[in-house]
């Protein structure tokens, strides 16, 4: 279960489990989390928890609610978010139940509305709540970790192409997008893709294929290296890595 850690100037006051669908934060005693401080409104903010998600909403407080330093009206809480109300801080800790491996959260599951509760006559063998789709027998933790690493490993590398010949010789084009197309539509077009492993060039359209360092490439994507010379629709350009 997710929880909040309430603290003031670095010292922890208490932990609050998010065990109710709706938890109110404010100065009045009716709030689940009461903070007796004049900077806090009577009903300052509330947290609605639905399954694994908790939503923070400012209830129109006088002094506002911050999450990680930014004022918010409505916000989906992420693990380790810090909510600030006046001088008080509430750190959100999303605790994943130990029995559910991370992968379970990615599996598509059916969520049945309450009205579809068991009809004993027509479907006697169905349990009242559907069993979540079972995870495959082999734990995929390492694969998940690898995939996450791949995701965070966005190429910090930035490359560009510089046109060498033709009327726009000298022009430089930074390859910042995941996909950049070059050439003349209808005549010859190639795409340069930016991937975690680096940059690749692929033929898109036209009878002629791009030439890299004097060699015609095939339909497969080809990795690009620093100072490769690309020839496309009669124009030569140089690929180079900026950082």
């Amino acid at each position, binding site marked *: 279960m997710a929880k909040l850690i309430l603290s003031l100037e670095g010292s922890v006051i208490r932990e609050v489990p998010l065990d109710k669908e709706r938890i109110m934060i404010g100065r009045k005693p009716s709030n689940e989390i009461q903070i007796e401080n004049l900077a806090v409104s009577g009903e300052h903010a509330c947290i609605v928890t*639905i399954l694994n998600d908790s939503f923070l909403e400012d209830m129109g407080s006088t002094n506002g609610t911050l999450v990680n330093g930014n004022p918010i009206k409505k916000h989906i809480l992420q693990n380790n978010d810090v909510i600030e109300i006046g001088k008080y801080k509430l750190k959100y800790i999303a605790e994943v139940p130990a029995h559910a491996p991370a992968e379970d959260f990615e599996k598509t*599951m059916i*969520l049945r509305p309450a009205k579809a509760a068991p009809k004993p006559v027509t479907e006697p063998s169905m349990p009242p709540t*559907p069993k979540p789709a079972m995870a495959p027998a082999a734990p995929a933790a390492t694969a998940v970790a690898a995939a996450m690493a791949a995701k965070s490993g966005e190429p910090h590398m930035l490359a560009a192409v510089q046109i060498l010949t033709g009327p726009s010789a000298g022009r430089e084009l930074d390859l910042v997008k995941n996909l950049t*197309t070059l050439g003349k539509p209808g005549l010859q077009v190639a795409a340069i893709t930016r991937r975690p492993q680096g940059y690749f060039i692929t033929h898109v359209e036209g009878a002629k294929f791009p030439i890299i360092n004097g060699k015609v490439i095939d339909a497969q994507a080809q990795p690009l290296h620093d100072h490769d010379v690309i020839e496309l629709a009669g124009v030569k350009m140089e690929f180079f890595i900026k950082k």
Partner: protein
Amino acid sequence: MADLSNMLEITTATHSGMVRSHNEDSIAADAAVGLAVLADGMGGYNAGEVASGIAVAMISAELKKALASITGDLDVSTAEKLVGEHAVRANNAIFQASQSQPQYAGMGTTLVVALWHDDYMIVGHIGDSRLYRMRGSKLEQVTRDHSLLQEQIDSGLITKEQARHSQNKNLVTRAVGIDPEVDAEVHSYPVQAGDIYLLCSDGLNDMVTDEDMELTLSSLQANLPLAAEQLVQQANDNGGRDNVSVILVRVLKNFPVRSGLVDRLKSWFR
């Protein structure tokens, strides 16, 4: 029925992703009939594959048969009914199998079916597999997910931007084969030459933003197979946490049932 193989260009791609050991998605497409079907199965061990496999095989085979047996004109509202009926039949078959065979208990699948007919596209869907349309260089989502997240967006609880960070992405509120009865959401849309339609499983749209999909489709539209491959690759480069399937359909020219002058005149006097 008219043969649409000269009017539609279809390409497909499917991949198990970077994490999963098997692919529980199933796809089928036939340009001649103007039909594309995509299903994303769920359930233990290989039951997900079985469910999505049954849905795709049944719908593509039986819908084709039903269309071939129609002698007169098929109007769009009848075609809508046909798509809905076949989704229900697939639901019955999967539900029966899951009831009678313990290893398939609780299996189910999402479904998106598109049928191109008489300058219209008839779309039926159940669950969170999607259909997008690219017209000009703008990509728009046509189907609306049957999911908890979509309900939260609709009720104003969260914005689309916040939805990207939700932990509840994988909860669908409707699926094929889980309950004895299911309703497919079926709508029809007029089609224009040049439109590109994208059917995909959530393995694509959870991993790749709509903006990146739009960029890929608009810049690679000259080469549809490459665009499909590129979309799958992007999902995998971003983590590939789920199976990812893509069907791309380009409308090359219009396909009205009545096109000749005589036909048009005849329809005048009806």
